[in-house]
């Protein structure tokens, strides 16, 4: 099949970053071979049906990057999960606990059987049948879920949207506006205004706060000489200090701007200039497509957009292979002759190899990680037709959250999904994530299914092959632009 064929570039992994790179290289008339070891597209941005997500938990996840996945079926009040999936593919017991004896084992119940092997020893059988029933019910609607590994939204005016428009793949992806932006502190929800109209109509902002906020937004977006001067004078200040001293912001208003608009991970993280740039980006996005700053894609943003770039690459002549594994990558003899990539089904040569670090057999997980939670609730707490982002701010840290419903085809009718993520190892952040989920689900909704895991940063080994180009993992920002910028930098390097 692939008999010593020559390529300009072999790209390993079909995550968003790799897909943009492949598409841009192909558009520049390079011969591209794009491979994924999974039977699906999307890599670390992949999006799954419920059963496919469980499949990922058991089978496809990179065990070095994500050593375990905690799954809670039902409530998350107790800290102990229903299943704690460590070593994949190695069931602890062989007894099956599926309740469906009549019909031949379908995919869902087979899946369930494999998962049931991870039930903690301490649980007794009657509880098991309760779990089997609940999980079975959820799996009946498996196809109506679109569960993302790395959820993100897109700024209405930003690098991703501009790139989608320029490359011409806008027709492949459908978006919906993110209507609401909340900041949650001390269990109090404040809706962050998205426009002058929102500020005017807000019932939680006092008059003085409205005036201060309008002054700030006008100053930052008008970007006059005076403002540039002011910013220059305050270059040394943190964004928080700048807002406090020059615009007299305080309390919840200050936090709304820092966390929910400028999206800082901590109070003093951003400098004055960066903070203002972030606010400008937010304000410039509002109004382009409606009264919102962000767009959320249907069927899972990262995955759909990655696939659109793959489609674009294929149209420009790129070759695609899924479920293909890389056995080895070696340097070809002599300077600048590139690499020999040994796949399961043959060998190819490439001038360049671009890879998701998970494809490097000698890559090691570092101590920096993003902890993630996915929580399916039995009631859409912000409404059936809404998409929202939230910032959960606590002393222990800041959690970014995304709320999605059937409006973006993320869940069946009558349910919703809450994504929560924050920087750090799961052992340190687990309690914070669970608190954030509980605060948002509140009293009206109960969790049906929750998964917690971490994605550790994979570093290529010290002595890894020289010249391989490694892509970054999805970062903890809310939007795709950093991924796009990174991809564009890689492309500039290669072309």
């Amino acid at each position, binding site marked *: 099949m692939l008999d010593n064929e020559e390529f300009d570039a072999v790209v390993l992994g079909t995550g968003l970053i790799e897909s943009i790179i492949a598409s841009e290289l192909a558009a520049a008339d390079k011969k591209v071979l794009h491979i994924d070891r999974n039977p699906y597209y999307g890599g670390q941005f992949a999006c799954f049906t419920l059963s496919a997500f469980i499949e990922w938990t058991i089978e496809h996840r990179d065990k070095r990057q994500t050593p375990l996945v905690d799954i809670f079926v039902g409530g998350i009040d107790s800290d102990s999960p229903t299943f704690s999936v460590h070593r994949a593919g190695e069931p602890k017991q062989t007894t099956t606990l599926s309740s469906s004896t009549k019909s031949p084992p379908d995919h869902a119940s087979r899946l369930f059987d494999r998962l049931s092997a991870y039930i903690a020893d301490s649980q007794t059988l009657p509880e098991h049948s309760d779990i089997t029933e609940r999980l079975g019910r959820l799996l009946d609607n498996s196809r109506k879920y679109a569960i993302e590994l790395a959820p993100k939204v897109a700024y209405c005016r930003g690098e991703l949207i501009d790139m989608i428009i320029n490359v011409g793949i806008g027709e492949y992806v459908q978006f919906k506006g993110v209507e609401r932006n909340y900041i949650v502190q001390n269990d109090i929800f404040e809706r962050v205004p998205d426009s*002058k109209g929102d500020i005017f109509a807000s019932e939680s902002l006092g008059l*003085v706060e409205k005036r201060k906020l309008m*002054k700030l937004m006008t100053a930052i977006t008008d970007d006059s000489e005076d403002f540039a001067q002011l910013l220059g004078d305050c270059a040394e200040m943190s964004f928080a200090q700048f807002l406090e001293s020059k615009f007299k912001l305080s309390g919840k208003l200050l936090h709304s701007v820092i966390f929910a608009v400028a999206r800082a991970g901590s109070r003093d993280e951003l400098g004055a200039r960066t903070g203002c740039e972030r606010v400008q980006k937010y304000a410039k996005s509002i109004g382009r497509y409606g009264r919102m700053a962000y767009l959320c894609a249907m069927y899972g943003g990262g995955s759909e957009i990655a696939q659109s770039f793959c489609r674009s690459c294929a149209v420009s002549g790129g070759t695609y292979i899924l479920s293909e594994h890389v056995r080895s990558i070696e340097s070809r003899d002599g300077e600048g002759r590139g690499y020999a990539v040994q796949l399961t089904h043959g060998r190819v040569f490439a001038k360049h190899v671009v890879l998701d670090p998970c494809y490097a057999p000698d890559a090691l997980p570092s101590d920096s990680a993003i902890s993630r939670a996915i929580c399916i609730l039995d009631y859409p707490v912000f409404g059936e037709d809404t998409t929202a982002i939230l910032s959960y701010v606590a002393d222990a840290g800041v959690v970014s959250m995304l709320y999605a419903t059937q409006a973006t085809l993320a869940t069946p009718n009558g349910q919703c999904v809450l994504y929560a993520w924050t920087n750090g190892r799961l052992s340190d952040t687990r309690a914070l994530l669970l608190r954030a989920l509980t605060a948002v689900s509140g009293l009206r909704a109960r969790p049906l299914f929750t998964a917690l895991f971490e994605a550790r940063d994979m570093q290529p080994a010290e002595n890894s092959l020289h010249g391989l180009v490694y892509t970054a993992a999805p970062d903890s920002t809310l939007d795709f632009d950093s991924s796009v910028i990174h991809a564009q930098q890689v492309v500039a390097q290669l072309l």
Partner: protein
Amino acid sequence: MHGRRRQALREPSVNEKEQNRQRVEKYCALNTSVMNLRAQSVFTTPALDLTKRLLELNTELHTVWNYRRAILTHLDAWQDPAERQRVLESELDFLFEIIRKNVKSYWMWNHRVWTLNSMPQADWRKELALVARLLDLDARNFHGWDYRRFVVSHMEDMDVAEFAFTTEQINRDCANHSAWHNRSKLLPGVLAKSGNAAEMLRSEQGLVLNAIYTDPDDQNAWLYHEWLVGIQTSDEDRCRMLRDKVAAIRELLELEDGDDASSKRPLIELVGALAAIDKLEAVTGEEKSECLDTLHTLKNIDGGHVGRYSDMIQMLGKRWELYQ
């Protein structure tokens, strides 16, 4: 429509010039035939069709609209109510088609009003929905708002709903003068109907205050407040409202930097309010100096109106016998 950029004019190409010339020729020919028929008082269906073609090209020909109305009333169908309804309904369809070309044609709106007035059974709900869509596209189109008032006047019990509609429009854009204006038309009726007029007035003041704090430069809220003060029945009420206004402006000014241009309007309003209070009841010595100090500040920051401020200082000074 509001908020759209003007397109830069460019010189038409030779092709375009020729096309334009042909279009103009056709138009003039059509215009001539229609005017001839009108001169001969021809009131037939073919004549009606010709007027339709002409009006599609130019909605501003009020003579032709008049002629069209004359033809319609002379048709046999006019005598029978059912037939008349059908004819006028298709008239509405025709108007709906051409509305997209020019939303601001007085004559077209006038014809629509005539059509609805002449119809045996007008569907006012449908008209309301139509004008709501128009206002969605352009919330400040006064033709739309005028037409909305016309439609609502033919419906029952719409005051409260319409009032809520203006609230919605103001919330969306507090600089929408048409919405504030419409609100002022409805408020007296709503106040009369509500059990608690004082409460309502307070919430109106709250709305105004909200707008002032959100955008102190925008004149709509200030004008509405002036009107609110005007509809008060007693001097006492007027003074109270004006004093509330003064207090609010003082708070607002504390937030602004002194030389910030946006604090010009509140200063002017402060002076105006104090002067107005003074006409109704005596102001304190402190308030007098506050007023005059503000005028001096205004002279410094608003050079364009120095003369006016100087005049006011003189006039007030005389009234208060502060200068000889």
